């Protein structure tokens, strides 16, 4: 075989899901386009989550119009930390984190300082649709900042780690913990250099970790053993992810969950076209698990039963 390439037969044998297959056989077959706005619009996701009793970060304000921005300065003076997000942004684009305020200055997650001018410009960009999926006008939401659960303190540089769970027809299929690094600039984005840790569906234990597609054992900034990680309350987390199927009615779904120090597991966002790197993080292909669910004769309507099935069948 050519150096640096794997043979397609070996990939097939490992059950790796490719982009074309994901798009044709899963995303377009199981996700109804009409329902996309439920996951593409964070505001709508939030409302639905509330209906289903799922925790989300606390919504502080919604900025819908350009003139709302001027009013915002006074409102922001009341709070010290917040996150500004485009309602229809994808992949973490356009998110501005303010950790604390010092007088006139807003301190960003990275430590950089910002005046209200900078925040206003960012909001203007969001409203104009710079970060939205098709460049359509958008609204900005201001949320309370998530305080990362201390169990991850040893494993993250600046940002809040999040847990991505692929849920197929309500069954949790595969999970991954994303840890930000210095290189990823505090962002939990794998192709910017964040660490992806595969999590065993049956136990919530870390099984394998990668950075830039290569296996790693220690977090590059904190030097802690990555495979020691165990996610607490794992079953509850899976049930939460699984019930996002009823919430969104999308068959092939990526659920992003964060663990807050005070409020526990919270739904951060949903994704109708979740990426494929989760397979690299787990060192395991998605395809067999997807087929196992596809072949089930009766699919349960109860999240806890689906989670039981997944925990029994998708062991490493």
């Amino acid at each position, binding site marked *: 075989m050519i150096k640096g*390439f794997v043979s397609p037969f*070996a990939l097939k044998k*490992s059950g790796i899901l490719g*982009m074309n*297959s994901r798009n*044709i056989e899963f995303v377009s077959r199981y996700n109804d386009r009409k329902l996309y706005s439920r996951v593409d619009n964070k505001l709508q996701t939030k409302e639905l989550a509330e209906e289903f009793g799922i925790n989300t970060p606390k919504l502080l304000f919604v900025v819908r119009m350009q003139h709302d921005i001027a009013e915002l300065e006074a409102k922001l003076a009341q709070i010290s930390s917040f996150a500004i997000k485009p309602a229809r942004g994808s992949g973490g684009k356009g998110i501005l984190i303010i950790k604390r305020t010092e007088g006139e200055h807003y301190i960003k997650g990275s430590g950089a300082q910002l005046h209200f001018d900078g925040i206003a410009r960012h909001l203007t960009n969001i409203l104009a649709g710079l970060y939205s999926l098709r460049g359509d006008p958008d609204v900005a939401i201001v949320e309370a900042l998530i305080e990362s659960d201390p169990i991850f303190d040893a494993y993250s540089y600046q940002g809040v780690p999040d847990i991505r769970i692929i849920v197929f027809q309500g069954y949790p299929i595969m999970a991954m913990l994303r840890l930000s690094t210095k290189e990823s600039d505090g962002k939990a984005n794998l192709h910017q250099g964040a660490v992806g840790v595969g999590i065993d569906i049956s136990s919530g234990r870390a099984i394998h970790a990668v950075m830039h597609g290569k296996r790693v054992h220690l977090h590059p900034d904190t030097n802690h053993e990555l495979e020691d990680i165990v996610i607490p309350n794992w079953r509850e987390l899976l049930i939460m992810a699984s019930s996002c199927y009823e919430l969104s009615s999308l068959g092939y779904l990526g659920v992003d969950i964060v663990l807050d120090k005070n409020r526990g597991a919270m739904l951060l966002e949903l994704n109708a076209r979740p990426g*494929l790197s989760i*397979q690299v993080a787990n*060192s395991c*292909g998605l395809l067999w698990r997807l087929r196992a669910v596809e072949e089930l004769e009766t699919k349960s309507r109860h999240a806890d039963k689906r989670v039981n099935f997944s925990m029994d069948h998708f062991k490493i």
Partner: protein
Amino acid sequence: MISKKALYIIAFSLIILGLFIAFMRHEQTKIPFFANEKKDLWMVEARVDFRAQDSKPVTIKLSLPSDTTEGKIYFEQSVSPGYGFSMFQKGEYRQGVWSTRRAKGEQTLYYRAQIVKEKVSPLALIEEQKLPQQKVPESDFIWNELEQIVADDILAQAEAKSSNAITFTTELIKILSLLDSEEERSLLFERSSYIEVLDKLLEDAGIKHRVSLALRLENARRNQSLTPVVEVYENEKWMLFDPKDALEQGGENFLLWTRGSSSLIEAEGAYNARVSFSMLKQNMPALELARSHMGESGFEIFSVHRLPIEAQSLFAMLLLLPVGALITVFLRVIIGVKTSGTFMPVLIAMAFLQTSFFLGILSFVVLVTIGLMLRGYLSALNLLLVARIAIIVVIVIFLVAFITLIGYELGFNTAMSVAFFPIIILAWTIERVSIISEEEGGREVVRQMSGTLIVATLAYLAMNNGYVSHLFFNFAELHLIIIALIILMGRYTGYRLLELRRFREFENL
């Protein structure tokens, strides 16, 4: 969802349909499949010299060649000051008639024609058939006893080796030309000429045939005369034979001038009329020939060639776009190249077509880089997105004008074609690149921009290819094949080539 099988059937029938229409168009309009295909064009000139009887009306009738499957007349004219000229056609006989009230002394008339010879395989005409037993009018030429014996022998030999009129004639010519070349000439030729002998033998064998006059086509010959050839009627067609060379069939090197016993020239009010021929072979692009002789039949009407030249050149560009789209689909779906903007690479490739490749790449990189630098200052102005893009559009136009002017002053006229870059697309590219670099870092910018340029380069190479542009412009129906290929790729669920690299860690699992 339509099943994969149905999809294959649709794609397959589209391909067949596209090929079929293209072939039909080729057959009917003679537009060649390859851009640089050339055809031999014979410029033939018949020169008629005669002496006019003083002050009498003169009428000269000259037998003319006509269109056949082997040769098509593309252009003909007569050069004859003071004479009226008209052409008449009756069946396959054509005549040109010159006439004038009065003429004096030596006169010269010219007839010129451009003729394209097609290759016709003689094998196509040979089919198993019985010898035709038609009554052929007996000529007054009669063998004497001795000659009759030899003739019967020859006929028996030829008949034994042949199966139909065509093969019989071939065998007969073989035997006769062998006899003719022997030192001791056969007694058959003592009393009569070679062609008379052949004529008589064919008649005895009961083969429907005629002796015609044809011009032997040889490049750059002057003062030639016509040579007699034999035509044999088979499968409702006349087939030409070189009387001396049995292998020479189908009249590839002959231009038939008269048919059967019709006379070459008839003169009234003139004497000493002589006809001589000269010819010249030219190599003409087949496309040009086809284009200059578009008729009014189905395909010829429904063709881009009917449009004004200006619209044609627009279509020449438009009809190339699908090729670029096909390449984009291939590189994205099968290879997995990441580009910024789905079809931006094709638009850039279109711009390259106008600017030439290296200048195109250079000005693209320069435009985007300078645009990005200026875009940095713009962000300090705190503008709305639409306003910012609008300003970038203006900046890009300024840059294009600037590059054009500098290029012009330095003497590079080609720099002017920079204006063909899609300005709005460039402005969006600049905006998007600046966002990507802010959000995802310089690495992603390099990855997406190099992907875009690779796709644009390959699309450019394909669209700039002479064969490709010729085929898709002249045979628009080939786009059905492109649709079929895109359909097939659109349902490809296998791995992308670059995924084999992305998941390379799975090699040893």
